């Protein structure tokens, strides 16, 4: 079966079946172009955090799908997302990745813009026809129509209409709450730099891997075995200790994933792995003096009861479809940027919990290096795997890719979502394809269909 020359709703729907999807979803340029239009052109896309643009005039470059965007705080205190394109001859106006500016000036003919995108001045304006109206919002660094933040996390939508951000996030918002609530001062800030890793593979593979509890034993076998054989008596300044512990954790057997970890999915493609690490197992070990200091500070600000409730939330990755995946418990956040059907770039950020001991942030950095680092002993095998999928899909092997694990055991959850029987269920991939179909054709295919 080939993809129709014109991709109708009907032909798109034929590519997604209840427990399997067509391989062309990961390779076809037409499908990719439609995804950029119908998914990245419609959904709420994570574009940055308030702490990246704290002052008036602060800006950062980002993108929505393939489109270069400037996120900027205007003098009215609001954050705007502007298409990074001059209204005159189309040049990209803002060249740096970040900075502070009181206006934006195009390098080509000096057209100058206010930081909310409006024209400020046009050299030789008298030479243009009188109908050229500098107040026309389309003659501007055009604003992305909707920009909203939820507890500091800024999302933008290229669509003028659609569900508001809160409705879009649904119950997944509670993972963003978890990220912020862990800060004793109730605020977090992006800090500690960014990883930008690239791979030759489709953007969807990244999100599909992040809640995949069944891959570590195989993909990460080399780092698991290397870490298991590592003598703990060898000198460490603390960073290697965290890394080795995390690599060993990847060795958790299937019985662990099948009995102790859950997967929850929600409308619009969102999901999270929950009940994962308790604090005795990982970075924030209870007997670690840094973590005890942190708990004391959290309790001092929030009270004992509230602090206990906050620390009881144990989530691993939360995916907010289509471009965000974050680890609220460990202050990590990844943003997926599609580049081409077979090329993706992922930016990963860390957050500092305000009011927490600085040594805890150092642990966050050490954890980031092993989990998200470009030279990580763990991530590099994931990147290799995405490349292998792309290479494999260039063959003419199996036409359909299987996403049916746990298919008959998906159940409704009291929080309004659909839960897999346990964390090895591929329900979160089925759920993303439910969202995919809804964006692409206007009508989804409930992931629970088979269970009924």
């Amino acid at each position, binding site marked *: 079966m080939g993809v129709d020359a014109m991709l109708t709703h009907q032909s798109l729907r034929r590519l997604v079946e209840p427990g399997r999807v067509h391989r062309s979803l990961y390779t076809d340029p037409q499908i990719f172009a439609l995804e950029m239009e119908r998914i990245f052109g419609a959904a709420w896309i994570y574009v940055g955090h308030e702490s990246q643009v704290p002052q008036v005039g602060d800006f950062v470059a980002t993108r929505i799908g393939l489109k270069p965007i400037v996120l900027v705080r205007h003098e009215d205190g609001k954050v705007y997302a502007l298409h990074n394109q001059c209204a005159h001859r189309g040049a990209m106006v803002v060249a740096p990745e970040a900075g502070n500016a009181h206006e934006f000036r195009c390098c080509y003919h000096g057209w100058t813009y206010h930081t909310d995108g409006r024209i400020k001045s046009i050299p030789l304006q008298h030479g243009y026809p009188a109908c050229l109206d500098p107040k026309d919002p389309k003659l501007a660094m055009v604003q992305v129509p909707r920009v909203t933040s939820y507890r500091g996390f800024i999302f933008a939508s290229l669509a003028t209409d659609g569900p508001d951000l809160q409705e879009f996030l649904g119950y997944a918002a509670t993972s963003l709450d978890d990220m912020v609530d862990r800060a004793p001062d109730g605020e977090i800030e992006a*800090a*500690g*730099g*960014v*990883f*930008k*890793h*690239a*791979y*030759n593979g489709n953007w969807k593979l990244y999100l599909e891997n992040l809640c995949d509890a069944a891959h570590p034993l195989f*993909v990460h*076998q*080399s*780092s698991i*075995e*290397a*870490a298991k*054989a*590592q*003598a*703990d008596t*060898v*000198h*460490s*300044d*603390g*960073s*290697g*200790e965290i*890394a*080795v512990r995390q*690599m060993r954790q990847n060795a958790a057997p299937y019985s662990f994933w099948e009995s102790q970890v859950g997967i929850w999915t929600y409308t619009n493609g969102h999901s999270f792995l929950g009940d994962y690490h308790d604090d005795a197992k990982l970075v924030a070990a209870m007997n670690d003096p840094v973590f005890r200091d942190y708990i004391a500070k959290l309790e001092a600000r929030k009270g004992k009861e509230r602090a206990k409730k906050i620390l009881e939330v144990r989530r691993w990755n939360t995916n907010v479809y289509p471009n965000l995946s974050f680890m609220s418990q460990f202050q990590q956040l990844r943003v997926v940027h599609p580049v081409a059907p077979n090329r993706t*770039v992922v930016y990963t950020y*860390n957050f500092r919990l305000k009011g927490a001991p600085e040594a805890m*942030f*150092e642990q966050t*950095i*050490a954890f*980031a*290096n092993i989990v*998200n*680092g*470009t*030279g*990580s*002993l763990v*991530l*590099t*095998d994931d*990147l*290799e*795997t995405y490349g*292998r999928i792309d290479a494999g899909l260039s063959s003419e092997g199996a036409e359909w890719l299987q996403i049916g694990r746990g298919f008959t055991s998906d159940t409704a959850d009291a929080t309004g979502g659909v839960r897999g029987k346990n964390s090895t269920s591929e329900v979160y991939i089925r759920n993303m394809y439910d969202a995919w179909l809804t964006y692409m054709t206007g009508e989804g295919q409930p992931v629970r269909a088979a269970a009924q």
Partner: protein
Amino acid sequence: MIGDSSSREKAEAFLLREARLLDEAQYEQWLALFTQDAWYWVPSQAGQTSPRDTVSLIYDDRRLLETRVRRLLNPSIHAQNPPSRSSRIVANVTLETDRDDGILETRSKLLLTEYRRNRLRTYAGTAWHRLVRDGKAAFRIASKRVDLIDCDGELEGLVVPL
């Protein structure tokens, strides 16, 4: 002997030997060049001052460096199946400090070309070695920092040590 030209030459010979071990994928011998409390650092930002407050492309203390080497030698390392071949040019070696307590610091230029699965990748940058004299003829690496010119760019996975 301190600060004489032979110190620079000996250090350079040592750096060339290190590069050769890496080119030949002799990772255990490479590890043996490091002191017991060494660190190996590839920053993620130009001019990065600390590996503690900012992420790093690689930041290994001795314990993690041992694990890195053991993984490189593990047959199930997918990212090295097939394995890379690599070719390092180490040049412009200067002696930055040469202390009478036996510690030397060198600055050198690295140009590394990696071949794997029909692709060539190039890495260019500046390496900073802190060497301690270990007997008359030899050195050990107390720390090694490599500043890649594209450290803050979009990069594919870094597997072969720089």
